[in-house]
């Protein structure tokens, strides 16, 4: 079990969290050469350090988590909205 130190919650198992799907924040205007289909579906799923939104269902809090999707190393977790 992998643990990480979360603000407000302390040390938690990361299995307690579920990540948000992409395409959450609807753009007000799509860029010219991007279709709605591109915006919804395109991904860049290569190993990289990325920021994700994780939901902790027991406390109903969203976190912003910096993680390496290649190694699963977590660098930082903060409450999505302080």
């Amino acid at each position, binding site marked *: *079990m*992998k*643990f990480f130190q979360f603000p407000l919650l302390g040390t938690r198992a*990361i299995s307690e969290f*579920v990540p*948000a*799907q*992409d*395409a*959450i*924040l*609807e*753009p*007000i205007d*799509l860029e010219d050469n991007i*279709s*709605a*289909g591109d*915006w*919804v*579906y395109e991904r860049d799923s290569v190993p990289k350090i990325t920021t994700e*939104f994780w*939901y902790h*269902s027991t406390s*109903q*809090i*969203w976190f912003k988590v910096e993680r390496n999707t290649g190694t*699963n190393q977590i660098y930082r977790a903060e409450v*999505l*909205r302080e």
Partner: protein
Amino acid sequence: MSRRLPPQHEEWIDRKVKIDFWFEGEKFSAYKGDVISSALIASGQKILARSFKYHRARSTVSMANHDANVILETLTQTNIRADVTHPVEGVRYQAVNTFGGLKKDLAQILNFFSALLPVGFYYKAFYRPRFLFPLWEKLIRGMTGLGKVNSNTGSWRQARKQLFCDVLVVGAGPSGLAAAEYLGRTGLKIIVVDENDHVGGTLGYRHNTDQSAKEFKDTTIKNLANFSSVSTLPMCYAAGLYEGGTVPIVGPDGIKEVHTKALIVATGSYEQPAVFRNNDAPGIILLSAAERLMNRYSVLPCESAVILAGNPEAYERAKNLKKIGLRIAAIIDLSLGPKVHEKEIADARKVGIKVTKITSIEEASLRKGTLDSITVITEHNQTEKIPCDGILMSVGWSPASSLLVQAGAKLSYLTSLEQVIPDEIPPGTYAAGQVNGIHEFKSKIDDGLAAANEAARFLGCDLPIISRPKREGRAHSHPYPVSAHPKGKEFVDFDEDIQLNDLRTSWREGFNSVELMKRYSTIGMGPSQGKISNMNGVRVLADLNKKSPGAIGTTTPRPFTHPVAIGALAGQRFRRYWRTPMHQCHQRMAANFEENGHWLRPMTYGAGSIQTLIEKEYVAVRDAVGIIDVSTLGKVELFGPDCIKLLEYAYTCKFDKLRTDMTRYIFMVDGSGVLIDDGVAARFSDDHFYITTTSSNAHTVVKQLRLFSDLLNLDIAIVDRTRQIGAFNVAGPLSREVLSKITSQSLSEADFPYLAVREFQIANVTARVMRVGFVGELGYEIHASANSAQTIWNSLMEAGKPLGIMPFGVETQRLLRLEKGHIILGQDTDGMTTPFEVNLGWGVNLKKEQSIGKNSLIHLKRQTKRQLVGFECTNTKNLEILESNLIVEGDRILGRVTSVGYSPHRKGIIGLAMIDSTDTSTEAICIKDSRGNLIDAQIVSTPFYDPENLRQLTSQGSDKISIK
């Protein structure tokens, strides 16, 4: 004939307690502390098992769970490892995978046909002609597998415990104990585990003649017991290392998940066998197996032993065993040159042991199924046959490094030691002792101390550096303990009966890397996972490839170290069971429940056929009044100035026209425009809303609303009230009359119109009441706190009794709403349905600045390909049509039925169907039932019942939740 020795210093048996058990129909005795194998060998039993493929006679090899030769079963348990399992009084054990018992095993015949069963034989035969393969397969399946499972036994589950520590020390031999004691002094929280019944490792069976070793062991164990920060767990093995430093420790009472900050791996190494003809015969064991048998269980492995020496320690170890009663016929030295082991040989000869230097082993010979002699080629190229009933092998080691590799370490081959050692171990994990290529007793202790010192400093302890001892300059493993024989039967892997020639053939057929060879030959894939076969496999492959073993690499050791029982892994059975506040009311009314997620909901009430029950409840709602528990709906309360902003982002509609104290139907799409939830929104004020969601999505909607609110930085409080509030619907023409009896609130059209929401007292309980309904009758949805909802329910039932009130279940509700043409999300919609396909386009506002799924919806509006329609079959009364039956047109599939039922109102079958809407003028459709019959149906407009909505709506507004 007993092979039991007089009491030994370190023995693990308690000679005062005798245990009788049965093996293959014969009675045997053990002492408490014996394992099954030791007790059997003590009684002179030579054959303990049959091999997997050729059914050759086998016995133990390692006495330590490093091999999986001796696997037994009882009536209720299977795949019992006899080398590490204590016999239980009165239990009848037998060997697995025999046909007619161990002695007479009919499948022994396979041994004679083994030439026909070369490596990968099953890839090369049985497929022509094709129709015969199932017969071959049946035959193969009959032969395969180890033990039988008894499907009549019940389940058992062991609770898993969570433990946290600073340093976990795996292995309590000299290095592990030294490390633990050092760490104990730092005050760090330490857990020490060892898979054996007692701690000490080699201190108990190899270094036990050394006085200083004995002192070290006694003092360290005593000291450890005095540290409150150290807990020692014998009989527990570390099954694997997982991300974040989790090590499941498997013991007799279940699994402890140890979460550790640092890990010391002092797991020792697996002694490796030599490969020669008939090297699998009972009686040919590792020298360490003999050490364990004699020192732990006080059992003599054989009457007359030949020691196969491929490393210097063979001599010292042989002498030690000789001291406690082992009769040594000879030491045969698998020599690498004239000077090698010169001193050891001279010393051995001095104490009267015959030593023969050999270049290779010809074969082990058997008489009547048991070992009789070994034939060797001496250094002078003479053939020499040495009679013996035991061959004890000391030819090399392979580190028990799986945890280290799982931590990220690499393995490299050290030519000076002729063995693999861990390399590039990531910080936080430390290797100590024999697993680290340290063989000498004092150095093992020093290595343990150094590892502990590194671990403590890693955790921030300010301690002077202890440096690692040097690895010895001479080899402890023979670089190639392999003697080929033209007739084969030189086994490299005992689990899988893999012979030397099998590996050669694999190699020649192109399976010439360690991974391909493993998969083709199945070396290392058996129950012991290659602990005593992989290294020899690598040596053979290196030889074939003319490379060093280091250039060959190794396969990745995956969890588990030893197999783990499903019942231990499963843990306790935790399931969520949620009950609505009215649950007891339903029970009293003899509800027939169905599971709905974690909830239980009444399907119908009372006894009788489901159709009769539905009909009774249906009539009550349509003609009088019914009541249904809807507490499972998600309920969310929103407070704050940004309520509308959030709702307009999350839902498809605008909220500016929703007046205070009114409600409306709302639905939600995801980013791709697919419908994911619907419900009702009530506006109490500009900054106070109350919304409901479908039962199954309650959690998801709250999650999404919170995410949106956080991302948009909205000033809003979102309160999930799903399980705080009970809710039910009172519906039917008499619902107003019933409700008015228990409230002083005016329910008149003017005071409480359709779609309005009010808060008032019912039966002296504060309730929130919405005049909405799913079933198409005048109705009220009442929400009240979970602890008082039952009071209202009971009062309503009481007040409604004279009017014929009946509770109704979800089955009846499904029919009622179908007549009304209302959709159920997830039933009438699927994972791709857009609002436009189910005629909800009226509720989609695409002019909002920002709203989830808006850009997709703009696109999807133009390419709506399907349409949900109502249909009716006037020519059939029987319900042959089932939900998910297809709408067809010849070979083409036009769509499917999503909801169907018999409508008492229309006196016929009605339903909803999702069809390809390329042709909107279609009036007739053809439904194919599950038996393939075609049934004609007409497309009709919905609602099927009360299309003007007169029964719900008597003053204003229009219910737009209808179809076509």
